[in-house]
């Protein structure tokens, strides 16, 4: 919880860096507008083959914040007071598919994240308290992402990225005691935003190896009918994968 201000600060810094003039970190073009456009034109000429790409990544997702807390956390019911650190959602992982295009230093991407989340401490806690349940959680996130290249040194580059999209978290709980299953209605379909940074290295002709770090949020996130607290989706995603440039192979 206390790490959130630091994360928000980081998001702010990323936003500032992405919206600031792109001539940072000593990149070509810092000499003036004409030089910048020349640099962009040279890049395009050199990288005509690097126009369209598709990427496949494996990701690790770390959710955090109030949305991960279980509804019973800190509540008393019957003769039991439930622990404050009872969590509904835990870390997970999944795959990321991206399709995009590059124009000079700007990269536009449509990205689909699909993955599963672990049920936090809830499932084991319920079992310890006599309820035989099984929880399955999944997360879907579709984003349009704008990226800008901050640094390029030979085949190594760093990009900042900013995206907007739509996020869906789905959860189902199956109770063997009651012999029924029900979907979690409190996970709301949400608008999402993300900001992040990625570092890449061209490892082969038309193939970049990318490491990406993204902070994401979803609004409204989790909503309980009888609980007015704000529980936005918040999470950090680390991913590692390949970005492929098919036109580079054809030339």
């Amino acid at each position, binding site marked *: 919880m206390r790490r959130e201000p630091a994360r928000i600060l980081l998001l702010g810094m990323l936003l500032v860096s992405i919206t600031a003039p792109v001539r940072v970190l000593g990149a070509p073009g810092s000499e003036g507008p004409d030089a910048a456009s020349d640099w962009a034109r040279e890049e395009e000429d050199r990288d005509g083959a690097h126009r369209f790409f598709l990427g496949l990544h494996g990701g690790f997702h770390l959710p955090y914040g109030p949305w991960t807390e279980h509804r*019973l956390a800190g509540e008393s*019911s019957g003769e*039991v007071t439930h622990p404050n650190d009872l969590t509904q959602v835990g870390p997970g992982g999944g795959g990321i598919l991206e399709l995009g295009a590059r124009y000079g230093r700007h990269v536009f991407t449509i990205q689909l994240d699909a993955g599963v989340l672990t049920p936090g401490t*809830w499932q084991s806690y*319920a079992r310890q308290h006599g309820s035989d349940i099984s929880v399955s959680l999944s997360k879907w996130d579709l984003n349009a992402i704008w990226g800008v290249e901050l640094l390029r040194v030979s085949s190594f580059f760093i990009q900042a990225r900013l995206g907007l999209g739509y996020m869906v978290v789905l959860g189902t709980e199956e109770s063997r005691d*009651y012999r*029924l299953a*029900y*979907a979690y*209605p409190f996970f709301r379909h949400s608008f999402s935003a993300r900001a992040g940074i990625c570092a890449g290295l061209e490892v082969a002709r038309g193939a970049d190896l990318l490491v990406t770090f993204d902070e994401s949020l979803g609004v409204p996130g989790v909503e309980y009918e009888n609980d007015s607290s704000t529980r936005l989706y918040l999470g950090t995603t680390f991913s590692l994968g390949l970005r492929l440039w098919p036109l580079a192979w054809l030339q």
Partner: protein
Amino acid sequence: MRHTLYEIWKIARTTAPLIALVGLFSCTVDGCRCTVRVRNQTPYFVHLLTPEEIWLYVAPSEVKALKADEKPAELQALIAPGQGVNAQCATSFACDSSSCEVIELYFENRSLHMRLDSSGCQDEGGSDLD
């Protein structure tokens, strides 16, 4: 043009509450729609499941309004998992019960029960649904 838009706005403003009222308790080709209230009188958080809606973690003393129509639908109530007690019960509910009645959930002898509470109605007594 501006005048016409203003007229449309005035009509919409007047009719919207009426439409909302009619929608709240109306008879259509599919039948009447209303809400049936359920009160959790147990010391536990409960789940309420109907074919149309799912209410999870209804807190002790909390009241939920379930959508109902003329056709009886099944209401399943269960003590939410993780509280050391497993108990459930079910009943059918429909619009035919008076709007002043409340279905009360109570916990007795380690079992979950439902009964109709008519204390909010005049000259009516409670009846057990079990």
